[in-house]
């Protein structure tokens, strides 16, 4: 059971990492990064490191995503577009 969940989380990590690299919409990429961090914290929890999982969920999924969203607010939303 835990192996199936582990495999699903790893596949989700790969898919969300691919989204982060390929998305032209930077806001979608930032949200994908939040999902990536959340799945990574889930993986830490499965590997029995709940301490690291809380830190990853707080810093990765919360703070870093908010910092990226604030940065996108100051620049443009689409990659490669010049104003």
């Amino acid at each position: 059971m835990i192996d199936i969940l582990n495999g699903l989380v790893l596949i989700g990590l790969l898919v969300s990492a691919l989204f982060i690299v390929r998305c032209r919409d930077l806001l979608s990429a930032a949200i994908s990064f939040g999902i990536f961090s959340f799945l990574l914290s889930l993986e830490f929890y499965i590997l029995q490191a709940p301490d690291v999982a809380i830190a990853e969920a707080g810093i990765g999924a919360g703070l870093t995503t908010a910092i990226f969203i604030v940065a996108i607010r100051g620049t443009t939303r689409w990659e490669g577009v010049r104003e």
Partner: protein
Amino acid sequence: MSMSKIVRAAACVLLPFILVFGFYIVMHGHLTPGGGFQGGAVIATGFVLLMAAFSYDSITARLSKSSLTGGETLGLLLFIVTAAVALGLGGTFFGNWLANSGAIFGTPVAFGANPGNLNTAGVIPIMNLAVGIEVLGGLSVILLYMLSGVHEEVA
């Protein structure tokens, strides 16, 4: 420049739950996984959510940079004073002068397997609280300074 009404309402609804959860992680740092850094990061996530949702002016009307840096300084001072009091009481630096003393956080730990008592561990919960305040101030002030730069760019 603030975000849409949905984002603002969701941030307002989520904030108290995030704060309570973060404070729980800080105060149970000596019993369960987590501690000062993790709990402070979770509380800072709540404040950062508020900062991302609302405009810079409405944030700085309630929450100033000096109060956040003051909280950071207060946390560091509480940490070092708690560690230095042990020297004054004749122990070593960072000595646990509150453990088993009967005062706050001074209850002796029960022998054997037990669910854990919050009122134990001496100075460790106090230092967890200090680190929590310090991390909260530090991480929040990073985003507040970044938001002020974006604000000047837009205006």
